[in-house]
C-alpha cells in the first residue's frame, strides 16, 4: 500500500537552531480542524493558511525543510493575533502558544522587515514598555486632545491621510487623564485584618493611561485584607515583546520583573492586565534554558494571579453596595483563553447586588487588540473591533467591562467609530471598587476617575 505518509529524506529545518518550535508541540496537532471557527482570521477570511491548523502545518513544513522561512510565511504568522482561542477549542490540547512564539522569534531573527516597518516596530518597543517615556509623550498628547486640536484634525479628515498605522495609533489612544503623573505608593496597608501580602504589577500602558484602574485594584485588595506592595523597581513585564518575537528584550524584562518582586517578598503577585498575566505565568517556560533563572522563574510564575483569581480565592469580606447597572462583560483573550479564567470575574460581578451582567455574542472572538496587533494590522483589527462592538450593542448594556487595557482601548475606539462613545468602558475591578466604596451607578457612569488611594 503506497499511501503511507510521505517521508522526506532528512532535510534540514528552515529554522535556526536556537529555540525552534519543538516537534513535540507541533506533533500534538492531529489536523482535526476544530480550531478553525474559533480563529478570528479564519472567521474573517476563510483561508486555511490563516487558521491555527494551517499555521501549524506551515510551521511543520518549515521544520521539515519542505517550505522556506520567507515573506509569505511571515505574513501568515504576522496575521495571527495570538489570541489563543484555538487553545480553548482544541480537543487534543495543542499548546499553540509554545509553537507560535518561538516561530515569531525565528522570523525576527532570520528575516528583515522593510525599513518603514522596522522603524515602526522599534518605535513601539521603545515607548510602550517604558512608562516614563510614555508619560513624556502624554504631555503633548494631552494638549493635542484637550485644546480642541484633535477635534479639528478629525473634522478636517487628516487621519485618513496618515499612513494606516499612525492613523490607528492616533485613534486608539485614549483621553490622557489628568492623573497621568500620579504614582501609587509603594506599600498600601490592608483595611481589614491581614490575610495576604501581595505584590501588584503597575504595568506600562495601564499605569499611564489608566492609573485609576491601578488605584481601584489596590483599594479593593486592601479592602479584602491584603497588604499591597508595588515595587518601584518593576518594569514592563515584556508581554508585548514575547508576543512579537522580540526574545532578547522579553528575557531581559522578565528577569527584571522577577527580581523586583523577589525583593518584595510577597505571597502572591497580582496582575490586573490579562496580557501581562498570561506572559508572567509563562516566565518559567521563557527562561527554561537559563540555568541561573529557570527555577526562580518557575517559582515566580507559580505565584502569579489575575486580580479576579485572587479575589475569588479569598472569601469576599468587604460589603458590596448595590450598583443598579446593566453591563456587558467582555472576555479578554489572554484571560479566557491563555489563562482559562472565565468563571472568576463573573462570580465576582455576580456578588454585586443589582448588577446585571450580559454576555456578548461571539464572546470567544478577539476584539482585535491582541497586544499591538491593532497598531501593526489596523485594517484587520478594525474589522474585528467593529464586529465586537456590533455584538456588544445587541446587549443594550450601559457600559462594557474588560480585564485588559488593550481591550479597553480597542473597545473605546470601536464605540467611537460607531458613534457610541457615550458608552463607557471599565475594567471590571472598577465596578468592584465602586461597589465597595458605595459609589452610585450614576457617579460611576459619569464621574471622574479616582486615581488616588485615599479616596473612600
Amino acid at each position, binding site marked *: *500500500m*503506497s*499511501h*503511507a*505518509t*510521505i517521508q*522526506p529524506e532528512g532535510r534540514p529545518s528552515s529554522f535556526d537552531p536556537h529555540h525552534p518550535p519543538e516537534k513535540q508541540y507541533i*506533533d*500534538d*496537532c*492531529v*489536523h*482535526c*480542524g*476544530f480550531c*478553525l*471557527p474559533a480563529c478570528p482570521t479564519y472567521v474573517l*477570511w*476563510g*483561508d*486555511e*493558511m490563516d487558521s491555527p*491548523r*494551517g499555521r501549524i*502545518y*506551515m510551521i511543520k*513544513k518549515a521544520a521539515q525543510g*519542505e*517550505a*522556506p522561512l*520567507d515573506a*509569505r*510565511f511571515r505574513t*501568515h504568522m504576522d496575521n495571527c493575533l495570538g489570541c489563543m482561542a484555538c487553545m480553548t*477549542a*482544541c*480537543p*487534543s*490540547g495543542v499548546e499553540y502558544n509554545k509553537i507560535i512564539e518561538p516561530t515569531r522569534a525565528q522570523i525576527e531573527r532570520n528575516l528583515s522587515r522593510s525599513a518603514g516597518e522596522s522603524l515602526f516596530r522599534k518605535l513601539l518597543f521603545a515607548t510602550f514598555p517604558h512608562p516614563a517615556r510614555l508619560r513624556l509623550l502624554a504631555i503633548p498628547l494631552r494638549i493635542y486632545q484637550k485644546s480642541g486640536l484633535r477635534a479639528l484634525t478629525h473634522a478636517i479628515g487628516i487621519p485618513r491621510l496618515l499612513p494606516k498605522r499612525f492613523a490607528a495609533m492616533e485613534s486608539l489612544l485614549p483621553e490622557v487623564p489628568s492623573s497621568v503623573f500620579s504614582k501609587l505608593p509603594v506599600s498600601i496597608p490592608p483595611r481589614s485584618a491581614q490575610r495576604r501580602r501581595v505584590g501588584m504589577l503597575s504595568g506600562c500602558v495601564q499605569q499611564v493611561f489608566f492609573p485609576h484602574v491601578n488605584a481601584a485594584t489596590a483599594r479593593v485588595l486592601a479592602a479584602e485584607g491584603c497588604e499591597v506592595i508595588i515595587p518601584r523597581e518593576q518594569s514592563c513585564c515584556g508581554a508585548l515583546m514575547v508576543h512579537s518575537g522580540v526574545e532578547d528584550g522579553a528575557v531581559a524584562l522578565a528577569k527584571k520583573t522577577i527580581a523586583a518582586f523577589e525583593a518584595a517578598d510577597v505571597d502572591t503577585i497580582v496582575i490586573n492586565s490579562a496580557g501581562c498575566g498570561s506572559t508572567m505565568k509563562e516566565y518559567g517556560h521563557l527562561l527554561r534554558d537559563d540555568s541561573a533563572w529557570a527555577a526562580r522563574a518557575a517559582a515566580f510564575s507559580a505565584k502569579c494571579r489575575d486580580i479576579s483569581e485572587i479575589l475569588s480565592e479569598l472569601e469576599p469580606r468587604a460589603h458590596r453596595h448595590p450598583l443598579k447597572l446593566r453591563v456587558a462583560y467582555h472576555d479578554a483573550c489572554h484571560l479566557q483563553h491563555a489563562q482559562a479564567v472565565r468563571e472568576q470575574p463573573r462570580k465576582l460581578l455576580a456578588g454585586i447586588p443589582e448588577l446585571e451582567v450580559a454576555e456578548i455574542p461571539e464572546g470567544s472572538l478577539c476584539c482585535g487588540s491582541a497586544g499591538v496587533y491593532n497598531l501593526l494590522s489596523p485594517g484587520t483589527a478594525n474589522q474585528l473591533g467593529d464586529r465586537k462592538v456590533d455584538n456588544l450593542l445587541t446587549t443594550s448594556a450601559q457600559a462594557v467591562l474588560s480585564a485588559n487595557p488593550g481591550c479597553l482601548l480597542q473597545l473605546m475606539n470601536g464605540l467611537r467609530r460607531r458613534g457610541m462613545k457615550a458608552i463607557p468602558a471599565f475594567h471590571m475591578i472598577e465596578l468592584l471598587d465602586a461597589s465597595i466604596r458605595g459609589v452610585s451607578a450614576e457617579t460611576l457612569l459619569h464621574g471622574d476617575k479616582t486615581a488616588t488611594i485615599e479616596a473612600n
Partner: protein
Amino acid sequence: MSQCESGNLFATMLTAAQIAELRAAVGPDGLITGESQLQTYECDGLTNFRVLPGAVVLPRTAEQVQAAVRVCARHKIPFVSRGAGTGLSGGALPAAAGVVISLARMNRILEVNIPDRYVVVEPGVINAHVTQRVAPSGYFYAPDPSSQSVCTIGGNVAENSGGAHCLKYGFTVTHTLALDVVLPNGDLVTFGSPALDAPGYDLAGVFVGSEGTLGVTTKITLRIVKRPEVVQTLLAAFASPQAAGQTVSDIIAAGMLPSAMEIMDTLAIEAAEAAVHAHYPMCGGLLLVELDGPAIDVATLMHETRALCEKNGATEIRVAQSEHERMLVWKGRKAAFAAMGRISPNYIVQDGVIPRTALPEVLTEIDRMAAAVNLRVANVFHAGDGNLHPLVLYDHAIAGQEEIAIDLSYRILHLCVDKGGSITGEHGVGKEKQQALGYMFSEPDLATMQLIRCAFDPDSIANPDKVFPRARLCADRPGPYAPHPLETAGVAEIF
C-alpha cells in the same frame, strides 16, 4: 520540488494562462497559488494522504463557482471541492496539480422560514450555526456529526453525514429539500424544491452522499425540526461493551426508539476524560442513551430504559440533570476522536457499519485481530444503528507500525462487510476506502453507479480519483468486460 502523488496518469502543471483564467473567475483575492500556501490544502482530516493542488480558489458567489468550474471544464482540469477540510476519508484530497474549490467564503444563511420549516444556506455555513440560528424559535437542524462545530453543510451534503441522532432523525439526505448545483460543465441546475415531491428523478437524493463527484452545490434548502419538549440523557456503566450492546438490543426489542445510543470502551473513555473532563464513570463499556419527546412519554421510556440497564448488569446509572450536564456528556463523546491525540501519538479512525445484532461478536473479533498485531483499538459507536468507529492507535515513529495499523483498519472493514454491513456509515469512501468499495459491491453494481457518474461528469473532472476502485472511462458499459475504444485503438491499456 513539490511532492506529488500522481493519481492521475495525465497530471500536468497548470499553465500561466489557465491560472489567469482562474484569477479572472474569482478575482485576485480569491486565488491561491503560492506553494507553501497550497501545502496547507494538501490534505483534509485524513493526513495519511497528501497531494499538492495546482491552485486553490475561494469563490464568494455561485457565479464565481460556475466561472471556475467552466475553466476546469474547458481545459479538463480535475477539481475537488472543500468545506472545512475535516473529512475523514480524504474526500477533499486534491487532484494532483488540480484545482481545489474552497467553499469556506460562501457562508451566509440566506433564508429562514419557520412556518414552512426550512432554511436556505450557502455550502460554507457551519452545521452548528444552522441550529443556532433557529434555536430561539424552538427548532433545530437534526444531523449533528461530532465535528458539527466546524464542518460545513456542503461537506455534510457530499458525505450524507449522520451524527449521533440519525437513528431517529435520519441523515443529511433526510433533511435536504433542494440543492442548487453547478454541474461539471459549469451549468447551474436545481434539484428538488422546498415543497415535497418535485416531479422528476430524485436527483437531490442521488447528489447527497456523492462525495463531490457529481458537481458543486452552491445553495442548500434544509429541513428543520421542532425541538422535542424534553431531552433526557442517561449514562450507564457496564463491565464490557458487549453488555452495553445487549442493552441496546433489548431497548430496540421493547419497541423503543431513542434519539441516540452511543457506546464507548475504556480507551475511548480515557481519552475523552483527558480532553473535556465530563466525569464519565470508568468502566469496560459506557452506554449513553438519549430519549426525547413529550415529557410524559419520555418519563415512561426512561423508566423502562433504566430497568433494561439494570437487567444487563449496569454498575452505575446516571441521568443528566441539567442542559449543562447534558452538553458536557456529549462534549466528551464528540471530542473522542480528536482526544485520541492525548493517549496515542497517532491513530486511524475507521467507520464500518454492522447489523446491530453482530456487535458483540465483531467487537470480540476486533480485539483478537488487534492483539495479534500488538496494537490497541479504542471503540466508539453509534450503537443505535451499528455504526462502528474503531480507532486503531499506533506510533508513526515506530518503523512499520503505520502500515500494520492501516492494514488492520481495512481488515476490520472487510469484517463488517462479511457480517452484512457496510464499509462506511458516515465518513464516506473518499480516497481511503476506494479499494474496499470493490469488496462490498460487485462489478455490475459499480458499473451501474458509474452510469450516474458519467451522466453528470462525462469528462471525469469532478473529484475524479475517489470513491470507485479504479479509474473508469465513461464509455465503459456495465456487464461483462468489453474493450474500451481507446484500448482497441492501442492508445490505452487497462492494468
